[in-house]
């Protein structure tokens, strides 16, 4: 079975209409938890200001890949990675990488909405306060800008000082997106951002992802293949720690090059 799994050169997918600079370049990347190898020889380019979706069955390593991009795996005791993971031509896996600055540049939205038990305003202002000395008025503007970007402003503008925990889950997740973009990241990582939301909230977030792609590079991990096909430009299919296929989303879902990809996207396994 494993003979089918090969690494296509990501640059070779001609179906991309325009050539964009790549925001993230991954080359010869291997990740481990202790002695267990989670990811093997990953080569991937994520183009700038587009949505890249990671799909694949559970345990295939796509979340691990995502969490290495902003080094969230640092807090896991025995996690380590070797290889090249470049964010705009700078390897982020080196010991001297400024993880704090990296995470400012690479925002993250998690699987379950995790607003701080503070007010809506304080949630959005949390990140800017960590990184910038900023006046009250420009912080107000920044909070409004972020909430507008996250399509939440109209719903919460009258209750910015109320607890974020009062919002619905869908609103909370959009608040988390607003919080992430408030620090001015270049890349947004989303780890199954809709998996705990109802269909209505999911579609709002998907619309939002599409709009945000105009300004940010977005990498989204999803279990939901419809979601990947709806809101991503490119898709990478992970299987057992390797990338089976990566390409233009439309092409990957309609004319997959690999048999295994076809089996997965048509729901035969996974």
């Amino acid at each position, binding site marked *: 079975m494993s003979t089918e799994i090969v690494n296509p050169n990501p640059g070779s997918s001609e179906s991309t209409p325009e050539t964009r600079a790549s925001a993230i370049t991954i080359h010869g990347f291997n990740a481990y938890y202790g002695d267990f190898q989670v990811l093997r020889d990953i080569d991937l380019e994520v183009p700038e200001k587009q949505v890249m979706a990671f799909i694949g069955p559970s345990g295939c390593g796509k979340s691990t890949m995502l969490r290495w991009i902003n080094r*969230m795996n640092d807090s896991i005791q025995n996690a380590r990675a070797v290889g090249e993971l470049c964010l705009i031509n700078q390897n982020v896996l080196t010991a001297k990488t400024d993880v704090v600055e990296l995470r400012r540049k690479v925002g993250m939205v998690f699987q*379950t909405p995790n*607003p*701080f038990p503070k007010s809506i305003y304080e949630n959005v202002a949390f*990140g800017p306060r960590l990184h910038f000395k900023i006046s009250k008025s420009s912080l107000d503007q920044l909070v409004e800008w972020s909430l507008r970007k996250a399509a939440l402003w109209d719903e919460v503008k009258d209750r910015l000082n109320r607890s974020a925990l009062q919002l619905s889950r869908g609103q909370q997740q959009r608040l988390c997106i607003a919080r992430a973009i408030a620090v001015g990241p270049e890349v947004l990582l989303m780890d199954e951002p809709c998996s705990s939301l109802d269909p209505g909230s999911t579609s709002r977030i998907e619309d939002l992802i599409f709009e945000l792609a105009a300004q940010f590079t977005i990498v989204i991990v999803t279990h939901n293949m419809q979601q990947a096909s709806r809101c991503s430009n490119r898709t990478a299919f992970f299987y057992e720690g390797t990338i089976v296929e990566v390409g233009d989303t439309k092409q990957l879902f309609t004319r997959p090059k690999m048999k295994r990809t076809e089996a997965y996207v048509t729901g035969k396994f996974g």
Partner: protein
Amino acid sequence: MSNPMEMRERKGLTRIDRRGRREDIFSITCLLASGIAVVILVTLLSTIVARGAGSLNTQFLMGVHLENQPEMSGISQALVGSLVLLLICGAVALPIGIGTAVYLEEFSTSNRWLQRWRGLVQLNINNLAGIPSIVYGILGVTAFVYMFGMFKPIQVNQVPQFEVGANYFYQLKTLELPELDIPGQFVYFPASDPDLAFRTITEPIDVYDRQGLKLKLNVLDPDQPLPNVASQLTTSVMRGTVASRFVRFNRGHFHLPLGRSILAAGLTLALVILPVVIIVSQQAIRSVPDSLRDAALGLGATRWQMVYRTVLPTALPGIMTGAILSMSRAIGEAAPVIAVMGGVLATSRNLATMMDSSPSLPSTIYKWSLHHHIAYDRLAAAAIIVLLVTLLLMNLIAILIRHFYEKRLELL
């Protein structure tokens, strides 16, 4: 009566019936057990109230302990002493306890030796929480009162080895002439060597009077005639007059070792509650969901920023509740306080500095209930009422804080 179930029960036929009966017996036993506890508690409380309520008046609250005058005695010094003990104890135990909890819970490490160190600390804390407080009392005596004998022990009429905030003077009285109604005055001069308790005046020296005015002290020989001018008389002494050492303490008076001081007792109480504070804070910190830590780290917070801005504020209600409950344990502790300060019932200096010893509520209750004068028994009961009310108030505050924060987190 005609109910078939009831008929069967009377015969004791089915297993279900027997099971039901066993259940009944069990629940009645539990009810009795809880009833006994409540009855004992109510009896205790009513006895104490009956005995002590009569003595509860302003005289009791404002007065100090007077030997053999139970009707005039009171607990004002004990109240102040307990409050100060609580402040010292909280100021020391809370920062150290919360800091330790944060370290143990949040700062994981891959260093093998640091991991062992953490394991050792955790093991010790878990064991220390169960140690009787009198053991801490003994530890407090060794560690704070005598400081392992590193310094000369504090003794009456001796200057401690290390001391700040104490001004030593010699005091003497100038000549007087009672026949002419001219009183002598007390004059002072600073002690160059405080170790000497007395100094003999042989030479004229500069001294200060009560108002702090500098004046020249004349020394007269015994065969010299006394001056008959009052101003000259009251600035003169006979050669060989002995000045005695006199000490004035500043607010910040401090010496090592700490001796039987309220500071030593407060530090000992801090040791008593430290394990509890750590454990409670650890639990509160552990109950903060990891998703919040991820959120803060994902936004580029450093570990310290994550702890300070996310974990601690979220864990704060739990930490504060635990802190107040451990403080209410501290305020009721008699054994370590008596071990460190000795059961003083009254002080003459009203707790002017941290180096004074002072009565506290539990030690006063203990001493009074053992007093040979039987009337102090009622005062002890009254003091118990005061202590219980204080404890009740503290627990109430703990509940209110938790309630307030829960509300605030929900609604804001």
